[in-house]
């Protein structure tokens, strides 16, 4: 087991990288798998020092749900935002800053949250607070900033909390 | 396959990375490896020279791809001669640099030095036009590093100019190569020769543009006026032993002109007729004169010698611009001479400026003044082309070769008057540096008020430097012996030069060796 750990310090990463290799080469052969696996062993070994603390996932399965929700939101928000951009006069638009207090603590989780906020059109994560306990979000058109904040916390942060912490 | 051809390129290319990887922090080991490599290089060059002296042209097909599809190295008398000259010079300068401690004044000196040799030798040996470009870049970028070795404001400023100017030259090189490739469909020099000869007479304009741009590139390296402006500041502000090594670099330009304009765009090729002749000769003569005037007008030691180097390039190019076997033979003899002479004088200039600064002014009597004065005097004689040293013989050869040229009076006049001005300039400098100092007593203190703080500082550093050992003098005397040997054995040397010129003017031998076929 210890030997296994030695050889395979990041089994998930190795797996992901092997998959990446197969994706990249788009060749579904044994050669490709073996070679990808070898690289999947080597590269984590090389990059490990840059990621000193191991990321722990408490609830990996929820990721799928999260992804689906985000994808759905992206599509919807895109349409909404496109309408705002094209049709709504600037004067009628109500851009706003929203401060989102964070319950998340791990950098990875916060980053995913911020990324989600940015990737769903209409909101952009613009900054974090000095100690990392709040997120500054800018909204393209938010007559009610508090609603935005609550939705972020409800829809995304809650789920991320479950996944990561 | 004669692996000796690639050896002088691969040897420094292996030693340099070895030095930076393994012995970078051990100066003594670094020196030993660098020196040993240079000694070995001389040995290899001797073998090559011996092989080339049979008159056979040898070809080395890199990657086992035959010309013109792969890159080939070609060894003929000319390339062997240049490689030998380079490695001998390198050995001597290496000794000097080690002896004077210059190599310790900045990082990575020996690695850059080895790479510099690799670049120069690679350029001499290659038979491929684009590969010539690559090795030009190798030698240039190494020279950038050596030029700014140990730093300092003026050196950096001059370094920027040197790099920028040469980058323009490199760009022009690519324009020229692109044009030539587009017109001829090849990059191999022998193949170029074959194809250029086949270009139909009604379609020469674009080929001519390519050919002349190539000539201009080489003219930049060879410091032909008005493309010489990079040289004085670069050489004068470089560490002077490096400037001594650079004496061979201008010759790379001259070599390339010689190679291309005998092999590819030779005097008999109709489509590129009159490209070089029309302006190269006047330009060479003006170069010579501007150099001589510069010698007289210099107020710094390095600059003095730099202009001396320009003068000698002017003389050399005058001989080349004759484009006759006699002219080329004279040029080759003069190349040997002027490389050694310029290097010699640069080393002497370094001895001087290490002791009393870079200005040509009377200072307190420097240590070893008498010996250095003798060296300077001999160097000046060599540089100015005065008897009895080889410079005089070289000049006579050039004068003699020019006697049937249309511009013979201009050539003779310029060379002779140039010599006069040079010797006046050298006499002025020498008498200020070595004689006038006898009339300055120890108590007088330094004469000059320093123009600005920076230099005052450099002056301070200069006082603190340890006094150089005997090795620098050994290097100087080695170069001097080279000049003397070249004088005494002028007959054999000029005979080799003649044979080389004859080989150059019979390009079909080269072409047959490379392509395995004769010019149609």
């Amino acid at each position, binding site marked *: 087991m210890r030997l296994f750990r030695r050889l395979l310090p990041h089994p998930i990463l190795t797996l992901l990288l092997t998959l990446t290799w197969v994706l*990249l080469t788009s060749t579904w052969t044994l050669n490709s798998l073996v070679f990808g696996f070898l690289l999947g062993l080597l590269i984590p070994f090389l990059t490990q020092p840059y990621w000193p603390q191991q990321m722990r996932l408490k609830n990996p399965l929820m990721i799928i749900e999260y992804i689906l929700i985000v994808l759905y939101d992206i599509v919807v928000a*895109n349409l909404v935002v496109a309408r705002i951009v094209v049709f709504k006069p600037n004067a009628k638009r109500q*851009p706003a800053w929203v*401060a989102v*207090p964070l319950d998340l603590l791990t950098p990875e989780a916060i980053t995913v949250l911020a990324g989600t906020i940015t990737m769903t059109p209409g909101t952009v994560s613009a*900054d974090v*607070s000095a100690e990392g306990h*709040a997120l*500054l979000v800018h909204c393209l058109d938010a007559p009610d900033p508090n609603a935005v904040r609550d939705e972020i916390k409800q829809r995304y942060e809650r789920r991320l909390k479950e996944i990561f912490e | 396959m004669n692996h000796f051809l690639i050896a002088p390129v691969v040897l420094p290319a292996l030693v340099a990375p070895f030095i930076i990887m393994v012995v970078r922090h051990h100066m003594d080991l670094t020196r030993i490896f660098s020196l040993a490599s240079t000694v070995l290089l001389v040995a290899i060059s001797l073998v090559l020279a011996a092989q080339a002296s049979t008159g056979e042209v040898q070809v080395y097909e890199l990657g086992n791809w035959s010309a013109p599809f792969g890159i080939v190295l070609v060894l003929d008398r000319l390339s062997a001669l240049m490689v030998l000259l380079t490695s001998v010079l390198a050995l001597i300068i290496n000794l000097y640099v080690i002896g004077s401690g210059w190599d310790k004044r900045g990082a990575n000196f020996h690695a850059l030095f080895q790479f510099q040799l690799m670049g120069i030798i690679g350029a001499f040996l290659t038979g491929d036009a684009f590969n010539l470009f690559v090795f030009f870049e190798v030698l240039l970028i190494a020279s950038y590093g050596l030029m700014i070795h140990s730093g300092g404001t003026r050196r950096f400023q001059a370094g920027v100019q040197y790099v920028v100017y040469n980058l323009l030259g490199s760009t022009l090189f690519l324009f020229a190569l692109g044009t030539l490739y587009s017109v001829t469909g090849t990059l191999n020099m022998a193949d170029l020769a074959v194809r250029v000869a086949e270009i139909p007479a009604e379609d020469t304009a674009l080929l001519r543009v390519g050919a002349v741009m190539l000539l201009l590139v080489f003219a930049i390296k060879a410091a032909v006026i008005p493309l010489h402006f990079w040289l004085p500041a670069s050489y004068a502000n470089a560490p002077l032993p490096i400037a001594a090594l650079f004496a061979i670099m201008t010759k790379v330009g001259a070599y390339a002109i010689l190679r291309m304009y005998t092999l590819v765009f030779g005097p008999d090729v109709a489509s590129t007729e009159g490209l070089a002749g029309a302006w190269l000769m006047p330009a060479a003569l003006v170069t010579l004169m501007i150099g001589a005037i510069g010698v007289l007008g210099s107020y710094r030691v390095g600059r003095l010698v730099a202009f001396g180097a320009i003068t000698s390039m002017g003389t050399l190019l005058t001989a080349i611009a004759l484009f006759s076997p006699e002219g080329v033979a004279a040029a080759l003899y003069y190349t040997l001479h002027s490389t050694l002479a310029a290097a010699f004088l640069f080393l002497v200039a370094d001895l001087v400026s290490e002791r009393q600064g870079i200005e040509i002014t009377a200072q307190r009597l420097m240590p070893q003044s008498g010996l250095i004065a003798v060296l300077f005097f001999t160097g000046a004689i060599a540089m100015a082309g005065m008897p009895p040293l080889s410079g005089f013989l070289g000049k006579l050869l050039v004068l003699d070769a020019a006697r049937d040229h249309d511009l013979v009076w201009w050539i003779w006049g310029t060379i002779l008057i140039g010599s006069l001005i040079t010797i006046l300039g050298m006499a002025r400098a020498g008498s200020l540096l070595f004689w006038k100092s006898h009339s300055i007593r120890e108590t007088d203190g330094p004469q000059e008020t320093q123009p600005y703080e920076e230099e005052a500082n450099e002056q301070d550093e200069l006082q603190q430097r340890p006094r150089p050992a005997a090795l620098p003098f050994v290097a100087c005397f080695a170069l001097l012996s080279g000049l003397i040997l070249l004088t005494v054995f002028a007959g054999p040397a000029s005979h080799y030069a003649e044979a080389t010129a004859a080989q150059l003017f019979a390009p079909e031998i080269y072409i047959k060796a490379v392509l395995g076929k004769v010019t149609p």
Partner: protein
Amino acid sequence: MFFEYLIAGFLVMAGLFGFVGSFGLLKLNDPMSRLHAPTKATTLGVGGVLLASMLHGVVVEGHLSLHELMITLFLFLTAPVTALFIAKVHIHRHETKTSLPKAGEDGIWATHNVTETKEAPAEDQQQG
């Protein structure tokens, strides 16, 4: 045929969103709002193209290639960072501590959290 229409649909959608993204860059009148626009180009714009490309590979060319997923992955990783930095530039140059909402318990947003420059260090300190 269905797949061809699907591909075409993706492409048209991609084109539209791509266009709108850059159009917003011109049309929107305040800098932070403009920052929203390109997000569409990266998501549905490029996303649509990539989807179309993958489908095209399978349907038209007849072989499965999923390396478009790699592009998507990289874009989703990098776009938020890009946006963050551009937003920070804006905040750094144009927003003040008071023009932004309160930063909760930390009191200040990171961009404004400038520690006073330290005393000039002594020269003899060795480099780390």
